């Protein structure tokens, strides 16, 4: 049966592109550029961002194909489940969702630091701002406040255009020469690879737009967004990197959690600083709106599926899964506190970049496997899918290793900390899926055995015990 019906409210290319770019371009991206500069100094950073963008074309193709196969908010579970099995899919998805928490925590920390910096308050007050920000986000979410799609679109384009315009002013207005052009291996043997891996992080999360596939006017809308949004991010990030390299010495960036404010001040004084502060706060609207929504709804669905404890599906009177939203806020506040206490904000960039590379490698693997297993039509088919996706598995695995063992501040040093953090997250996710999920499933089965009898009356001429499709006691 055809379901080609036009929805009253559906998402077009401009809105989907804004969603994709908005999810990717968070406040942490300003720090991501600083990490690239550590490995690809000066104008060379722009080259690394370009190479990262070219690699992202492959990611766009991979997720376009997967989204075409499973155009659903549950798409990641469906294609991972069919490619690598349900248990592995769950472990990967749980680990993936931790990046949402990292980004929420990072943005809360960065915005808190930016507000404190502009108000010239003691550094301890930054954490007060973090708690206030998360508290406001929590209250808005619990009350069911959602940003309308058109507001999200305007916010995203304002952030992208605002950052670009200030960067152009910084490059053109102030004058001077770029330092160290095309010196991609200038900071060590592997610095070019690491610079590209960090550049990839700037585009990270753009693929989350696939969770809105069910709202898209046509399947092609998501595909277009997946290819257009990275171009916008490439332009903005390149301009920002060139402006930073042009105006702000790396020594000043090295210890700063607010490189965008330094650039604003150097370019336009107080006006520039306030300009960048306003844009930083605006990025939080997208992060808190999109991040909380994606992660809390995932937790709700997982609890309803008996993969998380049932309280995570509890709804308040605004139909919001309040336990999930509150837990996300508390965990984000704890992560932000750890970052605040240790000063290791660039570590979030390393961990986030490495997890994204791992997800891209797994996505590539899904394309390789599903090309052989699923032959149905799809609105987007990659050309040379098997060789390109196989190449993706190798490439993104290498980039995962490059970032997981990189010190985001110092290109001359290796660090095992990002890898250890990811290994611990992955270990606990796997342990949870192996030990806790089966217990939750058994508890659900026991509840179903004791539950009320089937409500549906038996069809005339059939026995009461005849199985009916999809009953609640049918567990995956």
């Amino acid at each position, binding site marked *: *049966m055809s379901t080609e019906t036009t929805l*009253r409210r559906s998402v077009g290319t401009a809105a989907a592109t804004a969603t994709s770019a908005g999810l990717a371009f968070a406040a942490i991206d300003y720090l991501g550029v600083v990490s690239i500069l550590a490995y690809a100094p000066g104008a060379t950073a722009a080259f690394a961002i370009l190479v990262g963008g070219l690699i992202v074309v492959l990611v766009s193709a991979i997720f376009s194909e997967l989204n075409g196969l499973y155009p659903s908010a549950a798409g990641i579970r469906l294609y991972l489940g069919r490619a690598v099995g349900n248990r592995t899919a769950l472990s990967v998805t749980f680990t993936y969702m931790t990046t949402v928490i990292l980004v929420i925590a990072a943005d809360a920390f960065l915005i808190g630091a930016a507000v404190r910096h502009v108000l010239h308050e003691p550094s301890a007050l930054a954490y007060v701002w973090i708690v206030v920000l998360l508290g406001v986000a929590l209250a808005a979410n619990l009350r069911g406040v959602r940003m309308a799609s058109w507001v999200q679109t305007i916010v995203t384009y304002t952030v992208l255009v605002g950052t670009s315009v200030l960067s152009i002013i910084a490059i053109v207005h102030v004058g001077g020469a770029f330092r160290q052009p095309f010196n991609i291996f200038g900071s060590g043997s592997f610095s070019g690879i690491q610079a590209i891996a960090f550049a990839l992080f700037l585009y990270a999360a753009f693929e989350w737009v696939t*969770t809105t596939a069910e709202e898209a006017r046509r399947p092609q809308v998501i595909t277009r967004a997946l290819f257009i949004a990275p171009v916008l991010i490439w332009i903005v990030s390149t301009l920002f990197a060139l402006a930073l390299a042009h105006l702000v010495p790396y020594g000043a960036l090295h210890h700063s959690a607010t490189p965008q404010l330094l650039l604003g001040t150097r370019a336009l004084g107080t006006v520039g600083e306030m300009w960048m502060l306003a844009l930083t706060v605006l990025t939080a609207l997208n992060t808190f709106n999109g991040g909380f929504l994606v992660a809390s709804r995932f937790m709700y669905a997982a609890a309803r599926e008996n993969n998380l404890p049932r309280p995570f599906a509890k709804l308040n*009177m605004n139909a919001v899964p309040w336990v999930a939203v509150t837990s996300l806020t508390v965990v984000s506040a704890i992560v932000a506190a750890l970052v605040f206490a240790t000063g290791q904000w660039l570590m979030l960039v390393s961990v986030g970049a490495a997890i994204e590379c791992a997800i891209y490698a797994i996505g590539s693997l899904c394309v390789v496997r599903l090309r052989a297993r699923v032959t149905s039509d799809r609105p987007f088919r990659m050309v040379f899918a098997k060789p390109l996706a196989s190449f993706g598995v190798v490439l993104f695995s290498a980039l995962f290793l490059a970032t997981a063992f990189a010190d985001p501040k110092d290109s001359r040093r290796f660090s095992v900390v990002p890898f250890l953090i990811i290994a611990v997250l992955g270990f606990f996710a796997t342990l949870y899926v192996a030990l806790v999920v089966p217990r939750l499933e058994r508890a659900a089965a026991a509840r179903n055995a004791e539950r009320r009898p089937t409500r549906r009356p038996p069809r005339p001429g059939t026995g009461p015990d005849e199985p009916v499709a999809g009953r609640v006691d049918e567990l995956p």
Partner: protein
Amino acid sequence: MADWDELKEALADYTRSCNNNERLRKMQRDWSRVLHFVCSDSDVTFSMHVDRGEILSTPEGREGVPDIVVTTTSETFCDMFWGDLNPVQKYLRGEITVKGSQEDVMRLDAISYVIWPDS
């Protein structure tokens, strides 16, 4: 395969359960939507008009411009409206497909969860 009469019976029970549930009505007080349901195994389609959480009608055919379109087998629809299956499990396995916003998809499942907490 369930026919329209069986679906109608299930829908009548579902409508009663929803409209008589005070907690659900309060929770869905800001939720006014037109839903279309498409049976993938027959040519049966039907609609549901919800106004501030109250189900006003469930006519056969596609009536009005939908906010949400749900597609699955007629048997699954029957079991879903009788509260005999967990819609999320079917959705996460790709057996129920939905066109609509993520928020509306969750609201739709929330109805089943509130009426039948043991589902």
